[in-house]
């Protein structure tokens, strides 16, 4: 079974379209939980044990109507939860059509379905969802605007240590983890990769 045939450019376009539709006023932090539950009608729920027992932060159901989050993560790590929700929405937007063609049709096929996707294809789809989530929660233009308003310029390949005070501010502005913000700044050429 082949993975989804989407380029990273497609992922970028999907993220831009998503933001135009669901956050037209450029609200920050991006109200991803409100978008998921109140606009897209996705049932977000918290369940105990999925992180500790299974090692997953969350998942989207095979009918793409529910996002389940580990309840400890949900309460203790709201930034991480926001990213997981954005990531799972990414799967819905990018991969639902693929899943409807290749996905689960019978309960008994469940193991079979996952064994048919190669590790490489699965990981690529995960990277696509991850990229989508990063672009949605830290949109390119809004990230650059934050630098412009604070520094009067957009840094190019600077050391992250030099931008540390702004970096800390931006964690609150975008309500994401340091890892996500750093990755987005590297991708946008704002800071050097360590």
């Amino acid at each position, binding site marked *: 079974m082949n993975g989804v045939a989407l380029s990273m450019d497609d992922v970028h376009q999907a993220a831009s379209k998503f933001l135009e539709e669901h956050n037209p006023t450029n609200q920050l932090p991006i109200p991803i939980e409100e978008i998921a539950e109140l606009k897209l009608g996705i049932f977000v729920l*918290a*369940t105990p044990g999925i992180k500790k027992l299974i*090692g997953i932060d969350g998942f989207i159901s095979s009918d793409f109507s529910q996002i389940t989050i580990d*309840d400890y993560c949900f309460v203790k790590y709201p930034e991480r939860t926001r990213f997981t929700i954005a990531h799972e929405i990414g799967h819905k937007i990018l991969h639902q059509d693929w*899943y409807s063609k290749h*996905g*689960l049709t019978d309960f008994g096929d469940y*193991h079979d379905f996952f064994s048919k996707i190669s590790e490489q294809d699965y990981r690529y*789809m995960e990277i696509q*969802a991850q990229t989508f989530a990063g672009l949605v929660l830290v949109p390119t233009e809004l990230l650059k605007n934050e630098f412009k308003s604070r520094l009067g310029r957009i840094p190019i390949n600077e050391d992250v240590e030099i931008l540390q005070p702004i970096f800390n501010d931006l964690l609150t502005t975008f309500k994401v983890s340091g890892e996500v913000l750093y990755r987005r700044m590297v991708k946008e050429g704002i800071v050097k990769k360590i």
Partner: protein
Amino acid sequence: MNNNEITKNFGIFFRDRRVALGFTLRAFCKRFGYDPGNISRLERNILTPSVDENILKGYAKALQIEQDSPEWVTFFDLAYTTKGTIPLDIRNNQQIMSVLPAFYRTARGDKLDKKKINELINLISK
């Protein structure tokens, strides 16, 4: 109406009301001091609602259900009619299938092995 439908309707009633008021799960629990896991279990119909009047009144107030209104009566009826029913801890395959993960987020983006998938199925079947 069988017991499962009654329980199901309570969860759907609860969630529809919360969403109609513009509350996300987080916002609702934060505003009224509820545990997100418990509210999720109520809304998923795997926890039968309490019949303790004060608890139910607390929910009704949080959901802005006007006392003695038709909705108030429905809300309490749904809660009371589930008293003594067995929670939906055993679902049929079709129900489980719809909630099984299409994709799941692991730390490294790897697939789960068969053992972990079985554990996950057991966990979400309850």
